[in-house]
């Protein structure tokens, strides 16, 4: 399938992607793309990444048969890919590790990153501590408030957390501020972007560091069942865990790929974070993609119970997979996500991140409509310890 050769030389996936950035950053992106290509061709770099992925991150992560969840739904067999068991509690570490090693190789010892839920910030803080790099994390004030535990974790690991007070004070605004920092310090600094968004080469590079998720899953399912799954399900904010999961299955046309966006208070209310389900094409943060924007091209505020999905854009490769019909994208609202959260806690003793709970909720609904022969793998992209305060609030303390 043609997809495997994308992006093209200009960083495009179909009509999405590209490099819409201030001229100041163009040489840095050229340098990054060249260094990345060179690193991936270097056996020693790949070996170092693999060793640390095993010994530091704890890969490979397990594939768990969700027996009681399967029984509860009374339909398809559900398997869980356990990225929640990766070091620092989410898939974000896969990319943070890869990029930090690359930055080190490029001689850039100052790292800036953005974070929404704090998972990418924590992962970046951890690898910077491990490699002895300076780490500055931009985080919206609203997210600092709702993810206080992760802020403290980052500080413990030596990162400086800089609050962002502009806009809605969430992930989008943190990215703006991280880009401004990078524009101002580009000669000494690497921007460790946490998702498959932004200008080329980020969507491709972050995907490549995340596709270990899908590669392991594919092998694990084949070994366990002697066949491929029927569905692969993952949540989509910027889309890094989903593309990492989907990508190794793209050529397996019998495997249906389902991305789950944040429906917030419901698509009809306009208070959501589902650009693939309800957005239009535009340019934000250096790439052309589906976006939530108004009729004048201003970027709209988003809403989701999960800070990590609270973003008005989405990775260009997801936009392309939607356009060509290879993946489908659905939205799960806040209430359904909280139900998914509780469901996985109760049936499997696993506390998913609220982001991942969106994928779990859709998986439950999908499983109910399928027969027992059908196999669904859902990516539990992170664990939910960080979300306890929000869940307690949302459930009113009542269980």
């Amino acid at each position, binding site marked *: 399938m043609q997809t495997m050769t994308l992006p093209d030389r200009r960083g495009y996936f179909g009509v999405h992607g590209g*490099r819409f950035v201030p001229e*100041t950053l163009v040489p840095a992106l050229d340098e990054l793309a060249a260094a990345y290509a060179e690193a991936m061709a270097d056996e020693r770099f790949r070996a170092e990444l693999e060793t640390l992925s095993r010994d530091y991150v704890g890969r490979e992560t397990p594939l768990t048969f969700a027996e009681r969840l399967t029984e509860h739904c009374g339909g398809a067999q559900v398997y869980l890919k356990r990225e929640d068991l990766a070091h620092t509690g989410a898939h974000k570490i896969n990319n943070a590790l890869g990029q930090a090693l690359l930055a080190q190789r490029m001689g850039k010892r100052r790292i800036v990153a953005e974070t929404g839920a704090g998972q990418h910030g924590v992962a970046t803080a951890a690898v910077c501590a491990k490699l002895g790099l300076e780490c500055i994390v931009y985080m919206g004030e609203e997210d600092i408030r709702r993810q206080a535990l992760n802020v403290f974790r980052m500080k413990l690991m030596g990162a400086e957390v800089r609050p962002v007070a502009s806009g809605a004070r969430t992930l989008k605004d943190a990215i703006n501020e991280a880009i*401004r920092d990078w524009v101002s310090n*580009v000669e000494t600094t690497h921007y460790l972007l946490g998702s498959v968004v932004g200008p080329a080469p980020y969507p491709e590079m972050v995907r490549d560091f995340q596709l270990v998720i899908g590669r392991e899953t594919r092998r694990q399912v084949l070994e366990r069942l002697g066949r491929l799954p029927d569905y692969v399900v993952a949540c989509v904010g910027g889309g890094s865990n989903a593309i990492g999961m989907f990508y190794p299955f793209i050529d397996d046309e019998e495997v249906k790929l389902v991305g789950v966006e944040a429906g917030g208070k419901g698509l009809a209310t306009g208070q959501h974070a589902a650009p693939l389900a309800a957005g239009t094409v535009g340019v934000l943060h250096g790439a052309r993609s589906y976006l939530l924007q108004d009729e004048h091209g201003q970027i709209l505020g988003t809403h989701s119970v999960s800070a990590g999905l609270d973003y008005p854009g989405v990775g260009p490769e997801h936009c392309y997979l939607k356009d060509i019909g290879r993946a489908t994208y659905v939205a799960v609202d806040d209430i359904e996500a909280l139900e998914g959260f509780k469901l996985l806690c109760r049936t499997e003793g696993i506390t998913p991140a609220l982001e991942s709970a969106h994928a779990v909720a859709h998986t439950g609904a999908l499983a109910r409509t399928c027969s027992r022969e059908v196999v669904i793998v859902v990516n539990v992209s992170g664990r939910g310890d960080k979300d306890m305060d929000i869940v307690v609030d949302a459930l009113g303390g009542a269980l």
Partner: protein
Amino acid sequence: MNRLADVFDTTGRTALIAYVTVGYPTIEATLRLVPLLARNGCDIVELGIPFSDPMADGATIQKTSHEALLNGVTPDVCLDVARQLSGEVDVPLVFMSYYNPILKKGLDDFCRACADSGVSGLIVPDLPPDEGGELELVSAAHGVDLVYLLAPTATDARIRLVADRSRGFLYLVSLVGVTGARASLHDGLEDFVDRVRAVAKQPLCVGFGISSPEQAVRVAKVADGVIVGSRILQLVEQDDSLEEAARFVRAVRAALDSAE
């Protein structure tokens, strides 16, 4: 419509270019401010179309953009403001806009409306020439110049590419960073301008961080134009009679003229 190139052909002095965010603090203030800037010695005025996510801008223009959006400023409002101003001032007007509002309106509709409103050029800070091919063609068809930016981080190959593609003038970013008044300018500024001068035929205008007559004079020794933005907006914020802003522009103009 006033051509940008004419400014540099006919005035024979260092061009002074002012940036203002349309609708900050009010639309009415913009309509008063721009003629005031022209009367006090500006040769070109950049009208900033506010955007929700101005990633190349520092604190001042983030703030003015945010307030302008709260005032209901849209690209159509900016076009209307430009139309009114172009009947009143005889300096060229240029739009500064991030790409998404232009894309949303449609490149052809937007450029046609620019031409109809007396807007001579476009500066799009998140559109390098690698992505600007389509807007170049469409804007040229409507007689509007697409001005590209160059930064001190540029390689020689980038300088050649941008110099080959920019129309009207070349916008040289004085420093490695975002917009906003600075106490001092980048040490390597002169070297950077010289590197571009060796390749480019267009007039070279330098902006970002210029906030005093002394800095403007230093820039004018090597460049054809000086661009001032955040400092003017700070003065507008401090004094809504606009007299402080006018006084500042007058001082910069006088310093430039006496240095020549």
